[in-house]
């Protein structure tokens, strides 16, 4: 069995994350893969460096899995996030969700990526043609219930 959550510098594989959600009762499986794009806000991106507070990032991914499995009955979720230098086209994050019914598989998967962007302590350092910049998003606060409600609203809408 693959681990349900991982923060790793090794390349990610969808099949590995899918194996972590295998099991009886599933009727629908969704996956989400985030890829490094070759441009961002008009800049030509050369590569990205992902820096993680690894032990807290692993805990945060586990928290997201727990939140989703509590919210969507019978769901099994796994999330692997990569760190270090990533080239264009490489996968930075892979989420897999298995549920009895398809609506839940889509909702839980969408919830997970929104929550990852809210609370998981991982930072992107973008190296583009002519410079570099740290990409900053949300202030990470796992206890912020308004943020969690936003993720739920986006997922279940």
């Amino acid at each position: 069995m693959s681990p349900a959550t991982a923060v790793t510098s090794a390349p990610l594989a969808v099949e590995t994350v899918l194996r972590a959600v295998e099991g009886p009762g599933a009727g629908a499986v969704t996956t989400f893969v985030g890829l490094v794009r070759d441009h961002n806000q008009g800049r030509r991106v050369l590569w990205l460096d992902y820096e993680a507070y690894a032990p807290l990032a692993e805990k945060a991914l586990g928290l997201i899995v727990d939140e989703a499995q509590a919210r969507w009955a019978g769901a099994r979720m796994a999330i692997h996030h990569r760190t270090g230098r990533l080239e264009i086209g490489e996968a930075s994050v892979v989420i897999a969700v298995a549920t009895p019914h398809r609506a839940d598989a889509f909702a839980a998967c969408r919830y997970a990526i929104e929550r990852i962007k809210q609370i998981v302590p991982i930072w992107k350092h973008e190296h583009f043609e002519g410079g570099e910049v740290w990409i900053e998003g949300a202030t990470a606060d796992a206890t912020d219930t308004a943020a969690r409600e936003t993720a739920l609203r986006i997922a279940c809408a």
Partner: protein
Amino acid sequence: MRVTVRLFARLRELVGAGDLVLEVDADATVADVWATLVAAHPAAEAYARSMSCAVNLEYARMTTAVSAGDEVAFLPPVSGGEARRGA
């Protein structure tokens, strides 16, 4: 007492270290640790309003009390996930 401070990403670069040990009072909170950090490294002040924090791998508040040997992490706004924010 001494606590370990962990810094990341641009905040780490501004301070010039990802790991440092700070001396704070025995009744210190996370806010006191932050104030001690900023006193020694004024550039950290840029994150005063946008950072969040964790103590010993638990998300914490500025009012959270810290103990000797604790690991206090200050987290700039995060950007995990895929390469671009969704539409």
